């Protein structure tokens, strides 16, 4: 079948099987390796993408489910070479160690800030609780989420 959806702001139409996992569609067919596969079972958040603005797990989504949807992956977050405020906050706060969890963490942070533009640390921890960081860099990731919110709310960057 042909699945049509918007991917990082561009319309795509791709020939695939209806039950292909979205993580495979993105990584292997579309060459976008931002979404990582780790557990393949919903437990770790490495494969997080945004579908219609909401964080979803691409290891638990089938290609056909994307029909007509608006998909954002880590590759679509920056504007060209200019990092998004959330990405810049991750860099500035030292929230990236090996970086394996970072695409998912950044997208989960975007989902959080859309729902709650001024999260407390506790709210940020809870919103990011579906994303595991194998480097254990949670303090700085939460720092970055809170700092991104501050900058987006007009705080000096």
């Amino acid at each position: 079948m042909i699945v049509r959806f918007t991917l990082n702001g561009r319309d795509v139409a791709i020939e695939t099987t209806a039950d292909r996992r979205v993580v495979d569609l993105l990584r292997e067919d579309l060459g976008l390796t931002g979404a990582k596969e780790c557990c393949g079972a919903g437990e770790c958040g490495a494969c997080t993408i945004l579908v219609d603005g909401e964080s979803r797990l691409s290891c638990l989504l089938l290609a056909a489910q994307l029909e007509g949807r608006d998909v954002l992956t880590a590759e679509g977050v920056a504007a060209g070479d200019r990092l998004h405020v959330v990405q810049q906050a991750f860099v500035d706060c030292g929230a990236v160690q090996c970086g394996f969890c970072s695409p998912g963490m950044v997208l989960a942070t975007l989902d959080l800030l859309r729902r709650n533009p001024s999260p407390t640390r506790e709210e940020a921890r809870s919103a990011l609780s579906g994303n595991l960081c194998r480097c254990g860099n949670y303090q700085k990731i939460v720092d970055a989420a809170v700092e991104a919110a501050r900058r987006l709310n007009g705080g000096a960057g």
Partner: protein
Amino acid sequence: MEVFFPRTLAELWPLKAANPESAVMAGGTDLLVRLRKTGERPPAIIALERLAELRRMSIEGGGLRIGAAVTIGELAASEIVRDALPALWQAAAALGSPPVRHGATVGGNMCTASPAGDTLPPLYVYGAAVAVAGAAGCRRLPIGDFILGPGRTSLAPGEIVTDIIVPLPTGGAFSAYYKVGKRRAMAIAVASLAVCIVRTADGAAGKVRLAWGSVGPTVISLPAVEAFLAGKRLAPDVLRQAGAMAAAAVLPIDDVRASAGYRRSLAGNLLLKLAALGDDEQEDGR
């Protein structure tokens, strides 16, 4: 494998009839994990996510009607659920993680019929009914009759759950959901307890409904413990006695998460959470 997206129930029935071996998928957070683990491949999947009739929530005649394909995230974001059905709201907020909740549905939680399903104990204490439909018509049954055992429901082939109808407790009722897991997020319950208590004018417990998760093959109700607490002030010694009754009556198993003995103790001790409620009542009463 084909994946179908019926938009209406009228479109769904012929699809089910033409694909009798197909699997129904709501959020897929149980189904896709299971298919991957077992290597099973149903010939087709019928997805409910674009079926508007199953995605609505509405107040109807003293109850909240929740479409089976409403997501757990939508429940956790609903003010009606938060204010009128706090035990269900707390359970939704404690299920999985945010991205899991954005897919997972209340109908899926029910049809998986896991003893650890977080929305189930609250639905038991609120006396929820399940609306089931098939090509031939609809029926409605209490949740306790819908769930038959671990992973087993009374759904006949070709039937789906369309709605869950939850009576709203009367004003002044207290309800809550207490979940114990290995960590605070993304943890299946080791034991859980939902309570719904209607208080009498003098601050004692009137009608008491209790339901435990993860301490038996399915959700456990203990009418004897409910009857013991009814009419009493929920003082710690009363709750300890009730806890001993509960610990003796539940049917837990050993598994990777906890031993049966630990689950038994938890089942009893979770009742002590209600001691704080007893204090409030005494303060209120004065």
